[in-house]
């Protein structure tokens, strides 16, 4: 087994354990080359490098799984299966897309499989947002409070969407996957993906940002 160079571990570790919550966005902006190097090593069969990829990316992958499934138990199962699938398929990752995008697609696919296998939509009492941590105290606390409140209400509204609408809006508007990628991973047509997206946006808008005269649902 090839040892991962210490420099890579140190840089990536600092990203993985930093205060910012979601690993991928932070790490890829700060050390894309290190992540790329880890992927290369993992592709060559270096298990330690793949474990390091897990350490760097798992919080973000879990957050996506949590948003797609709506509860922590399913999200953990989906994330575990996703990394197993990623490990087995890492040699097929071509590197022309970001590793995060590739991983999101796997999580989306595993989530669809997992939820359809369960055959029902679970809504745990656990709220997926709980505390939104302010890592940027320089921000205006009032604005930050408004934004946090909007995010909280939005997360709640997303969780209340039917799974078929929720998955599409999360993958497109939160995780920036293309319509084509979403359609492929969810096993639907691009047209269906777009229709579901527009319906989801409309429901969220009505729920979270209603117009005067529109009844805001509790």
């Amino acid at each position, binding site marked *: 087994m090839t040892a991962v160079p210490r420099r890579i571990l140190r840089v990536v570790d600092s990203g993985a354990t930093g205060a910012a919550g979601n690993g991928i966005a932070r790490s890829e902006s700060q050390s894309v080359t290190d992540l790329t190097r880890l992927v290369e090593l993992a592709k060559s069969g270096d*298990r330690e490098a793949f474990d390091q990829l897990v*350490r760097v990316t798992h*919080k973000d992958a*879990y957050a996506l799984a949590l948003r797609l499934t709506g509860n922590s138990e399913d999200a953990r199962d989906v994330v575990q299966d996703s990394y197993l699938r990623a490990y087995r398929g890492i040699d097929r990752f071509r590197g022309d897309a970001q590793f995060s995008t590739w991983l999101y697609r796997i999580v989306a696919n595993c989530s669809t499989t997992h939820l359809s296998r369960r055959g029902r939509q679970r809504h745990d009492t656990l709220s997926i947002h709980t505390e*939104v941590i302010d890592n940027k105290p320089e921000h205006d606390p009032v604005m930050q409070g408004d934004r*946090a409140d909007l995010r909280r209400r939005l997360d709640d509204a997303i969780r209340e969407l039917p799974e078929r609408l929720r998955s599409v809006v999360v993958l497109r*508007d*939160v*995780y920036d996957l293309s319509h084509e990628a979403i359609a492929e991973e969810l096993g639907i047509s691009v047209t269906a993906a777009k229709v579901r997206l527009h*319906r989801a946006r409309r429901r969220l808008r009505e729920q979270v940002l209603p117009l005067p005269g529109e009844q805001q649902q509790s």
Partner: protein
Amino acid sequence: MTGETPSSVTSSPDMAQIPAGAVSGLDCAAFSDVLAETAGGDRSHNSHEVAHLESCLRCRVEQSRYRRLIQALNSLQEAPLPTDPRLESQILMYLDRYADRWAWDAKPRLAAKVAAGAAAAAGLIAFTARQRRIAKLAS
């Protein structure tokens, strides 16, 4: 938040009375779908839609709501979610348990399937040849 409509507009009690879409001929209910579609920037408005927006305060307010919604959705990825501190070790243990087992277990299983398939194909060929011979003798 940028793109938000001033409160003086959103709170206007006369908003519902504004003749919506009088210029463009589009009605607001249909236009709501257009706004949901264009909110993410996948396409821009055509001239009919622009005309409707210019003539309709209600839809302009709704458009600003959609802008705000999309901004909030885009920012959700940055909002940290609580993660079980044991998750990392759980994933790594899961990989320990299944990732390498696949290498040892699945490949022989695959080889066995291939061998079984080849045997079945050989049997079928032999069976077909025999049937042909029987048919030939009978005729």
